[in-house]
């Protein structure tokens, strides 16, 4: 029973408490690069969710086998393997999805968040918690990217998921790379403010004050 609640907490932790983008401040590069639209953010998030879960599970299974002195090359190679396998299978059997997501999948190999979860969590935990951590962190990443996507696409293009809502483009700069940094800063500050004001949190763990 206590095991169940801890798994639930672990899951929520990835989405709220230690959200990869807004709390751990990891993988900010793709978070700025692909969030010019909600759809892009969503697709990137789902791709990360898959790779992260697979990597976490593999690292957890091999945690007693991998020598700590060469753990980083081992983790990177495991990630690269899963990325390659997913890329190949998808490009053969899911052409339509691949056309939308193919661009993002290969980039995932170098994501800090994947390596960080393998190092910080999966290498020290059993299979099931590692799996839950991967799914939770992946969902947290997806939600963060979609939130940024909603903010930027709505302000920059006046649309959501490609559907035009406003007849004008209120703030074109928001969909440019510059706007990505603005959006990221504003969003992070806003979430920290909410956290501190209503939940008594201490703000982002790595963002400082």
């Amino acid at each position: 029973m206590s095991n169940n609640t801890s798994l639930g907490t672990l899951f929520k932790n990835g989405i709220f408490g230690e959200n990869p983008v807004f709390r751990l401040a990891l993988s900010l590069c793709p978070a700025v690069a692909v969030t010019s639209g909600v759809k892009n953010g969503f697709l990137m998030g789902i791709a990360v969710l898959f790779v992260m879960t697979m990597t976490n599970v593999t690292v957890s299974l091999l945690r007693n086998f991998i020598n700590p002195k060469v753990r980083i090359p081992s983790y990177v190679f495991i990630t690269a393997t899963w990325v390659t396998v997913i890329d190949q299978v998808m490009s053969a059997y899911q052409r339509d999805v691949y056309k939308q997501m193919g661009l993002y999948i290969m980039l995932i190999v170098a994501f800090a968040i994947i390596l960080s979860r393998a190092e910080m969590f999966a290498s020290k935990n059993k299979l099931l918690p590692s799996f839950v951590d991967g799914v939770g962190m992946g969902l947290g990443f997806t939600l963060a990217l979609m939130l940024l996507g909603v903010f930027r696409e709505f302000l920059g293009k006046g649309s959501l998921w490609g559907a035009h809502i406003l007849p004008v483009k209120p703030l074109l700069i928001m969909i440019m790379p510059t706007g990505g940094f603005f959006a990221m800063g504003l969003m992070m500050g806003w979430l920290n403010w909410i956290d501190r004001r209503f939940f008594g949190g201490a703000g982002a763990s790595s963002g400082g004050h």
Partner: protein
Amino acid sequence: MKDMIKITLPLVAIFVVAGIIMSVTYQHTYPVRFQAEKKEKEEALKEMAPDATDPINPAGTWTANNKPYEYYLATSGGKPMAYIASTAGKGYSSYIQMLVSLDTDLKIKDVKILDMNETPGLGDQVLEQSFLDQFKGKSLSQIVLIKGETKENIQAVSGATYSSRGVTNGVKDAVQTLVDKYGAGVKTAAQEVTK
């Protein structure tokens, strides 16, 4: 020495197993992917000339941006229905890969973007049908990019001038090539009609 082996062996084992997994995946997915890509290309060509019933085969190659591109003659029962060329134009951040098809009277029938890597949200607006539809029915001399309202020529998408220019240049090169290759044939066909 013993330590070295203890560290290296598991790493090598991981690399070998991962390598095997990847090569097996490749082996199994390659034929499927190859077929799917071939089919997609055929379907894309078919869409460019829906009224051609014969299979569309490459008629030759031409050069754009120092790269070879194919052109095709679409026929129905041996009678020419459309001229198609694959082409590319340099946009803001990528070469925009396209297919262009011409009617037998050398007016643009259709323009289709196959692949590009322009700025999401700005340059990728050239994918919108309202921009591409402007090309339909235009002849070679009309393919000029204009910033501002135009019915006669091609109107650039605001905020995506470089990408619009890329598409326009790519289309223009392709049309020029097709006119050079097939224009003479069309003239004789027209003369036959007047006789």
